[in-house]
């Protein structure tokens, strides 16, 4: 059974990141966009943990914990914004939210 190397982790991370990015750019539902952001963050986490393991340095894992916390906070704020948005516009469709132009 071939050993799982850092390169595998990085490829997984890259795949997750790509899926997340595509999700952010293509999906119209803001909730899904938020979930896609979670994917991106977790892709980063995998990167951090993988390199921490390879370099035998615990700082990376500590960073991963920080990122998880950050993700939780971000999710809270993001959902709050979505609720506020929905109250005002009665929609969560990103295409219909275009107030930020000149």
């Amino acid at each position, binding site marked *: 059974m071939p050993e799982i190397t850092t390169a595998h982790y990085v490829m997984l991370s890259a795949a997750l990141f790509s899926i997340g*990015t595509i999700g*952010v*750019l*293509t999906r119209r539902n803001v909730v899904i*966009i938020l979930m896609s952001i979670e994917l991106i963050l977790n892709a980063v986490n995998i990167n951090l943990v993988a390199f921490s393991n390879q370099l035998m340095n615990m700082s990376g894992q500590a960073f991963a914990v920080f990122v998880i916390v950050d993700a939780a906070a971000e999710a809270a704020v993001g959902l709050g914004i979505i609720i506020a948005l929905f109250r005002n516009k009665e929609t969560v469709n*990103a*295409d219909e*939210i*275009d*107030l*930020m*132009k*000149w």
Partner: protein
Amino acid sequence: MNFLESIWLIPLFPAAGALIMLLFGKKLPNKIVSIICPGSVLISFIFALGAVMQLSGLAERRYEKILYTWLPSAGFHMANGDMSRIGADWGFLLDPLSSVMVLVVTGVGFLIHVYSVGYMGHEGGYYRFFGYLNLFMFSMLTLVLGNNYLLLFVGWEGVGLCSYLLIGFYFHKKSAGDAGKKAFVVNRIGDGGFVLGMFLILATFGTLRFTSVTEQAASGHFSIGDPVFTLIALGLFVGAMGKSAQFPLYVWLPDAMEGPTPVSALIHAATMVTAGVYMIARSNVLYTLSPDAMAVVASVGAFTALFAATIGIAQNDIKKVLAYSTVSQLGYMVLACGVGAFGAGIFHLMTHAFFKALLFLGAGSVIHALSGEQDLYKMGALKNKIPVTYGTFMVASLAIIGLPPFAGFFSKDEILWLTWNSSVGISWLLWMIGFITAGLTACYIWRLVFLAFFGKSRVDHHVEHHIHESPKSMTIPLIVLAVLSAIGGWIGWPAALGGSNRLEHWLEPVFEPSHHILAAGGHAAELAASHAQEYMFMGLSVAVACFGVFLAYYFFLKNPAASESLATNFSGIHRVLQNKYYVDEFYNKYLVEGFCKGGGNALWRFDSSVIDGGVNGSAWLTRLFSRASIWWDTWVIDGFVRASAFAVRVLSYPVRLLQTGLVQGSALFILFGILIFMSYFLLG
């Protein structure tokens, strides 16, 4: 008691009376009013009498009492460049001249107050009448007692005001109101001249006090005929013309007869109208320093005397006749002043105050008896019905025509004699005019007497049985004035008739400086003339007076038809005289309508075209400029701003297209950006 110390109180008694009438008059019963008002004048008279008695005991015969400096002033430059400080004092001067005036004013004034108690008894506004009368006494006493020109002017304006108020006493009558206004306006014209004269005095002498002005003027620093004196004298004389009703400013006096008769007697015969003569006599030195002004004064006086006397002959209103007589007699006084005979002028002023007040009061008594009738042709045969009035009126009529030994004889004769002997170039002409006027005076006064008291009664029937003699309060003043008219002239009994002319000597200190000036200038009246000459003049004037009386007798009593045929044969002259030479019409047409209204119109046109034109023009210009400014602002200034904004808009348009406002669009750009950077670092 020291009356001299308290001369300042003399005007204040009537002032207090007037004040009481103003504050409480309406509530006071007539009886109390008739005690307070004549009483206050009586007290003034007593004080004046006491003061004059004590004055005659003084060596210098001059007493000046300054209460306080009324109008202090900062220094100012006089005409000759000197600095001077003037302060008009609230001060009083009692000298022989003002003592004569103050006694006449308070004495005659008191008698007329008493008379008014009877005359005005039935009239409304009783307290108002007496309040005005007392206010008048206050003003008149301030006028004659003031020790400087400004205080004199205060009194001068005060009497003018009271004259206006009293002429318009029957204010519900339009003619009375109009007459009051006329008197006021005409007097203001005179006041203009007076004020100018006063300013010139101030600029020349730096003081307004009579004593200082006289002293400086007589000191010899000024040459005779200096133009400044002519200007001063003529300025003051314009004031005197207005107040003393001289031609051409006499027109207000006949109209002033609209007032109650006691007012005509007090203000428009005995006292106020003589203020001008008093002022000229007071300024005698200023006048004698200007022979030109003297000639003007004498000519105006003589002309007025003759002019008014001719009008008086043709008037049918009893008071109008007396009014023109007053104008004429004032002309005599002014003539006397003009020929340098100031003493004679003041003498005539005094005797005239007696007999003219008596004539007016007598006329008032006649009018009272006839229930208000003033037309001479509706009188007649009153001789026996109102004997006291008749008797006193006769005395006054004899006095005014100058029959010896009545008062008018002495004063009028002195004036005529001194006029003949005066140094004015045309003295014979002036004398001639005075002489003819004496005849005319006799004629018109006796015409009045014959028409009113003699002949057949022409009184309306319903008035006839009402005729009654006036009450005691009216007849007693008449009697007192009759006595004064009879013997008042004896105070100036001429030397030629064995007298000593005490009035002349009494007044001497006041007029002495001007006699010196006249002597120095070679203008002294040549009084060395013999007594024979004086007797001749006396004889002549008595003769002309008798001739005048005879004419009146012939035309108006013996043969009334003759006067009517005369009037029809010379209807042109008669009409001109009856219409007072159309002077009022002339004034109305040319001065009131032509000059005042025309001038007003012209000024209005000037205002509306030139002044308003300037204003409107500048507004129009402003609007024009602001239009241009608006154009500049909108097209040039705003143009720059808008052009730059437009440029930014145009340039920003493509950039704006990128901004969709969609979050995902922005994210895509971010991604592309990252990819470009990454490919740059990885591939580069």
